[in-house]
């Protein structure tokens, strides 16, 4: 594919999926600055790999796979190792409208999940992907996805069953 054609294709992909990719990166990395790095890197990698994309999965699945792998690379970096222990919403973009107390609790709890459970939850419940798509993104079997989701459910159920907190 000629560069200009690929640029047009990339622009289309970014307009369609940029915010979705950024949101997943935000929740995965818990830091807007890192998430924007990851999103930028994701689309750059997508551009370079565009010729190899054969349409075996949907574009979104393909991009999410790149995004998750990019986030994993960032997690392995020294920067993340320093920051990963404190979970807060302070480093996420300021919400357009103030979230409810239980939404904050739920999001914090998702962010506290072990990484492999968190990535499964983000793709399945936040990105609304099918089990097969999540399995494709994570490079694991659908049964492994189910297992991770169950573990995540066990961790999240207290806060999902809880009522409204103080506000």
């Amino acid at each position, binding site marked *: 594919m000629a560069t200009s054609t690929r640029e047009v294709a990339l622009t289309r992909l970014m307009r369609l999926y940029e*915010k979705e990719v950024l949101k997943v990166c935000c929740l995965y990395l818990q830091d807007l600055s890192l998430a924007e790095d990851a999103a930028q890197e994701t689309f750059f990698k997508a551009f370079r790999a565009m010729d190899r994309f054969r349409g075996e999965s949907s574009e979104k699945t393909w991009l999410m796979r790149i995004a998750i792998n990019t986030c994993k690379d960032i997690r392995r970096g020294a*920067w993340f190792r320093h920051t990963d222990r404190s979970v807060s919403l302070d480093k996420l973009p*300021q919400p*357009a409208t*103030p979230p409810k107390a239980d939404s*904050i609790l739920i999001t914090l709890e998702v962010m506290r999940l072990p990484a492999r459970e968190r990535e499964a939850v983000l793709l399945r419940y936040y990105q609304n992907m099918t089990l097969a798509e999540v399995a494709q993104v994570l490079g694991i079997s659908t049964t492994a996805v189910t297992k991770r989701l169950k573990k995540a459910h066990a961790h999240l159920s207290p806060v999902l069953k809880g009522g409204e907190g103080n506000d």
Partner: protein
Amino acid sequence: MTKEMETKLRRGMEECLSGVENRPSLESRVLERIQGQRRGPVRLSVAMIMVLVLCLFTVAALAVGAVAGWFRVEQRQVGAMQSCVSDGDTLYLLTSGGLYTWQPEAEKPALVLPDAALRAAGLTPEAQLCLMGDNLALLHPETRTLWQVDGQTLQSLAEYGGTALDEDNLQIGSVVCAGETLLIRAVPCDATEDEALLYRWHLPTGRMEQLPLRNVVELCACDDAHALVLQRDLSAQKEYLIRIDVTTGSIEETLHTAPVQSMEGIMVHPRTGQIIALVAGAPSLWNGSGWEAMQGYGLSVHTDACAIVGDALAAINYNDLQVIPFVPENSLTTLRVCGIMPLNNEDDAFQQENPGVAVQRAKNPALTAAEIRQAIADGDTTDLFHVRLTWDVAALFRDGTLAALPPSSVLEEDAGALLPAFQEGLGVDGTLFAVPSHVGVYVWESGQELPATFTGLLEAQMGWTKIQYAEYLLTAYITASGEEVNFSSPAFAKVLQALRDARLPENPRMSQPVVTTQVMVQLNGQLPFDQQQGESRIYSQTETIQQPPILWETPCPVIPGAAPVVPSQLMVYVLNPNAANPALALRYLESIAAHRQPEQDALLKPMTAEAVLHPGVEAQIEWMIEEQRAFDEAQGRETDEEALASRIDAIKAAPDSWAVEETRLAYYWDEIAPYVRLQLHPLLTGQAKAEGGAYDQMLKAVLAYVNGEGTLEECVQNLVALLP
């Protein structure tokens, strides 16, 4: 997960991430990079900072470890944790990096079988470890094979293909061995972790059978003939601790029935035979009739598997292995804290200063005043509660339910330096009841000059709906009014009338908002937009980076001429009058007051606050000086102190080097702090805002009027009637 839970989960995350939609597109950056005009995000200087920060953290961790016997291994050292098992002396750990062993005195786990060796045998880290007598075994679900680890080799022992367990829709949760029998916890794909089944595999005969036990959440072997099973029945909200006869698979005894708790891991101490579990993150001992929290440290993370090694509890999750020592009775005092988990590690400083004390936290993110009241009435001896300061919590100060804090010059000095609004919220008649840990101050942000009155806001067509205007009007009026809310005032009537008469756009979302509300004040230095987001940084000695303009605005007052009100919220620690260790709790509170993060301290006490560099940047500067001098010395030349000072100045000139940045602090102190108020009002509690609550009914009354129903007098009468 039910559809309702899925929706709640998705909605929760969507609300918290709604700000992403307003972020500028990354499109131009990516295209520039493709065209070679921009480099990729590199954290060169930041990496340098972080190496130092990591070193500092390691030193701190080792210091804590030295006094407390903690041990922690991170994923980066050994790979993602999958499964662990212990023979009492040695911990076996299966990770994505391979099979490791660890003994209590060892500095780090030793690799026995690398990942490549496991994969060469057709194994993946999804396997589960178990001990068969003195032998280590691995049950690998994908190949349906039980392997024995013999030194550095693997031997296939048995296969369960074709048995009752050979089902694609079953996930192996855990495996234990008692005598010649394996017990296998398996979760059907369409079920939850709480609905796991139990299988019994008799190895000599190869017979596999499903036992008539459901909802198995935990499993451990007691001896060659018995195992313990924890059953959790969510529909009945009960848990059952059961001992089963492994040879027959029958239930021998129900040891305990209890309400559902957040219980993880059941273990039998290899030396003492005592039954131990993690209950709400705290290692707890089975006393024959219930669980007693043991002295020692708590876990603040979720646990996938745990085991007892030496005199310690080893727990793994995907990210790390933590080893927490058991401590002899009375050798360590435990401070118990219940409520919101801290957003940052607030306990580090206290733990280092108090090696004989362990902080255990029971997580309850939605802890309410009613729950605190009940806990105190029930004689709960939790030392401290960590809770959001609401009207209901403040009511516990006024009615004497919570204990006033004992006299402390540290706390008095801390409270004395707080903004008056915070000071007033923390006590009654000058008596202190709470110590703040975190604060949120919420302003508006706008690049334009905002109208000074509510009617001006209406005319400005800010993209708000009538509901949003009505909510703002009601909340701001109640907050500004304090205890005496006068809905009959002519000024209030006038703004109500103005809202009714306002002509708002039919589709307000299409109009450009001129103001962002609920912006949390952050005092750390910011970079301009075009220099944000991880570009590699070169600290220039000639170019000064200007930080972006501060766009904070105090919310517009509802009543013309009234002072603006900037809402804020505190998270506080309060003392239980039944606290087991009140003196220790006080020491903890003093530590919280003395070791808050600089940004938090500056928000709470702007009058005494000063600009503070990020700790990592300070460390970077120190490191840079040392390195430069050492380098120059090695080169046999004098350090150019002027050049060095200039480099340091360049780092300090970068706005994002500052945890508390001078200009923002000054702006906060001058323009925002005078108007900060805590939203402590009976009409603004969660209960009042819930469906049918007083605030909810008031909002409905206001909306009815502004949408053209009834008269102004009727609306005001309705509002007055709803006042508490």
